[in-house]
């Protein structure tokens, strides 16, 4: 059973820093239909917003979904409520990186083959998204 606590520092901070209010979502799930990487997610994009509405911060911070989100902005482009879910996903990631787990991925995690092959853009964007 899901019990909504209604209190979450993550969500309060998110409203300010992302300019997005999850309460405005009416759960049409267009974001989930648009998202190209849902197959690898444990929570669908619209479910992430529902969890935000319910204040289920701890569950969100355990979810794999924010780390699968590639910030492609398709969800925001299709949202009839003009919400930017990519910004909310960034908030969940940053909450993890800043306060909880520390860096998710760093240069030491790269294989020698990756180091040789990956374009500079991939390395910089990967480190930026998975590091403090």
């Amino acid at each position, binding site marked *: 059973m899901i019990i909504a606590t209604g209190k979450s520092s993550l969500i309060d901070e998110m409203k300010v*820093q*992302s*300019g997005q209010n999850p309460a405005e979502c009416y759960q049409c799930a267009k974001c989930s239909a648009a998202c*190209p*990487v849902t*197959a*690898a997610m444990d929570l669908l994009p619209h479910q992430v917003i529902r969890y935000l509405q319910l204040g289920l911060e701890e569950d969100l911070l355990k979810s794999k979904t924010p*780390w*699968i989100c*590639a*910030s*492609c*902005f*398709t969800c*925001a*482009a299709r949202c009839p409520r003009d919400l*930017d879910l*990519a*910004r909310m996903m*960034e*908030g969940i990631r*940053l909450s993890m990186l800043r306060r909880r787990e520390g860096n998710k*991925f760093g240069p030491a995690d*790269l294989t020698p083959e*990756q180091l*040789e*092959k*990956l*374009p*500079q*853009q*991939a*390395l*910089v*964007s*990967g480190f*930026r*998204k*998975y590091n403090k």
Partner: protein
Amino acid sequence: MRYRYFPGCTLKGQAKSMEDTAMAAAAALGIELIELDEWQCCGAVYPLYEDELISLLSPVRTLAAAAGEPLVSLCSACHHVLKRAQELMQRNQDARHKVTDFLEVEYSGEGRVLHFLEVLRDDLGFDKLTEMIKKPLEGRKVAAYYGCLLLRPSKVMQFDDPENPTIMEDLLKTLGAEVVKSPYRTECCGAYLSVTEEGVASDTVARIIDSARQAGAEALITACPLCRYNLENCSREDGKEPIKVYYFSELLAEAMGLPGESTGADGSKEEVAQR
């Protein structure tokens, strides 16, 4: 036509062929691209939380260095970051004061921030470009692959229709190619997930390649080095004829009859080995 030019890291490394061919085409078209002095990486991704000001220092320094002159990039990601950083500087006075005070620069959001494709479409005009096409790409079935960063968020990027863009198809038409429209042309390639979740990027890439192939394309064009990397390196072996991936500028230079042949998939791998 005079512009300041921001290359970005990858254009000096793995995507050198995009820079070389675009510079050759620009010179032949009378488009002067003057590289900024002492530029640094744009940061590759735009910070989506508005307190992430430190990530804005580099793009805002770049914007300020252009000193009000139009600023052109070739890489989709660089253009995306610069354009969105400019929009934030125009919209959020508090962020602007903090960033410009820290950098000790004057900048209040002025100047046009353009992708080279926009220069070709809006400033030069594809009509004018037609006159410069010496070796049209006749019979070449090419599809445009836009990806994410040029199109979205469309309110800020103002590049083209985010769901039904035409700029790259119009360019291909101008170059004399047989334009193939593929339904997955605005879908994400998986971006930096190829670093951490290669399987996810392989799925996105497979859909894009299959869709282009089914539409009859033999080649794709892109303006993003990471899209090209993923399309070339994350595709699964499926026994079918591989689709060639080019930077838009490679086909532009080729159709204009300029030196600097398109390298295609194999060429880019050679470059990697040399690095």
